[in-house]
């Protein structure tokens, strides 16, 4: 109730009979970069899907975004409200050009400011400008991630959620992606980033939640969590990504 852009309370959700999230509370305010960490299968991606309202069945709790109740919304409506997700696998339109992918990112707004936004995405991601006429499937992994983020930015998101943006990318490109995420947050956009790579993410995040077995096991500022023995136990004891 502190004026957060996204407020998740007691969220329970899953797939069919399988309950994955067992009561999750989470807030993200404008201009914040918040990380959701946790081992594989903890429910991180499920949380993003529940917020974007696809594939996941909600079983209880509330999701309020910018004053609107998302539990009653469909995916298209969440996008219209400014809640965007760059999902696992990026979900680009491979047979369309890079530029068409970006233009379609503005589907819920369109016209008027489209050209200006296109230019600013190209400025942010110069490789995309060079490849604007190519089919999206011809891009490298890093460029595809840039395109996926660029496409989401074309909708002028208030909240941008990234699902495992580091997957399959070289460390140098991952650094670039996080630098851009931090820059977006400084510009006032809220960012919610799901990652397995905890230390990398905590270096850029302001706050973080650690999910375990579908519930928040730990929450705090990035600095606190970096010092926390339990985080070290989870991430240094187990397999470090």
């Amino acid at each position: 109730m502190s004026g957060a852009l996204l407020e998740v309370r007691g969220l329970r959700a899953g797939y069919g009979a399988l309950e994955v999230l067992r009561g999750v509370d989470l807030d993200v305010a404008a201009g914040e970069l918040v990380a959701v960490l946790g081992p594989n299968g903890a429910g991180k991606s499920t949380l993003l899907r529940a917020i974007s309202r696809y594939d996941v069945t909600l079983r209880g709790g509330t999701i309020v975004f910018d004053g609107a109740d998302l539990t009653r919304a469909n995916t298209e409506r969440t996008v219209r409200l400014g809640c965007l997700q760059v999902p696992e696998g990026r979900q680009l339109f491979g047979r369309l050009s890079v530029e068409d992918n970006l233009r379609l990112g503005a589907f819920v707004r369109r016209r008027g400011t489209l050209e200006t936004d296109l230019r600013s995405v190209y400025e942010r991601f110069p490789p995309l400008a060079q490849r604007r006429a190519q089919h999206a499937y011809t891009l490298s992994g890093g460029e595809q991630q840039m395109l996926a983020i660029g496409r989401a930015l074309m909708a002028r998101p208030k909240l941008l959620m990234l699902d495992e943006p580091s997957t399959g990318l070289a460390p140098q490109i991952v650094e670039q992606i996080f630098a851009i995420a931090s820059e977006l947050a400084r510009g006032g956009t809220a960012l919610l980033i799901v990652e397995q790579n905890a230390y990398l993410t905590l270096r850029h995040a302001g706050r973080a939640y650690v999910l375990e077995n579908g519930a928040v096991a730990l929450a705090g500022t990035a600095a606190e969590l970096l010092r926390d023995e339990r985080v070290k136990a989870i991430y240094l004891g187990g397999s470090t990504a």
Partner: protein
Amino acid sequence: MLQLLIAGLTVGSEFALIALGIHIILRATRVVNFAQGEFSIVGGLIALTCAEVLHANAWFALAGATLAGFVLGLVFEIVVLRPAGRTGGEAGVTIATIGAVFVLLYGHALVPGWGSDSHPLPGFGGPANIVILSLSKDGGAVVQVQSLWVFALLIAALAALYVFFERTYYGKAIRAAAENPLGARLVGIDVNSARAISVALGIALAAYGGTIIGPITLVGGAAGFALTIKGFVAAIVGGLESPVGCVAGGFVVGVLQVFLQSRMSYDVADPLVYSVLLLMLLVRPQGLFGRRDVVRD
């Protein structure tokens, strides 16, 4: 020879439009619409009603049939295919299209003025019914003006589809929704509406095809399913995933059919045309214009 070639390309134009409709609907729904030929027959009959009852000229009859096809396609998707998909998945949708074959086949025969017979459709006009082409000395060819109209109208439809899907924002949004429904939803495209529009375009194309060929082949009757199969063979020959291939395949099947029918009885010629399907699936399953990497799902 030239004469047969022109006749083959004329019927091939109809197969091309059926194949293209199958392609557009397949891309959006992952399902082959087995009622494509029946919708083509019904489209031709709607044009007949426009011409005979409403006294529309051939052009308005064509516009009326195409528009009616679009609306029928929307209804077909929303009322039949969508619920079938919710309960039965892709198999359910496929079976629904087969069910639609019988509903349309026996249903249209009950409509007053349509019946189960074939009817002539008024032509698109022109200076004369027949044009003589004498390109070579060893005999020219007689071309019906209506054949020329078929080619012109086929090209017009192809151009319109090309512009819509390749040059307009909504056309690209519909392609995006067909290629990656989740990606499309995540940019705010209503995938259900996009799918309905794809199906409606496919059915409109069938109705358009059934009408432009009507002055030559008559409209109505029970030939709808054979038309579907020939369109399907055309799509396989050219490549189900390739719009250019669908058109080329339509011409190949049309010319092949006319040549075979000129040399042997229809009873022998048609099975030979269908056997091209098996041959293509064995030799080049992606079709003449398809790419190997799309043969997967």
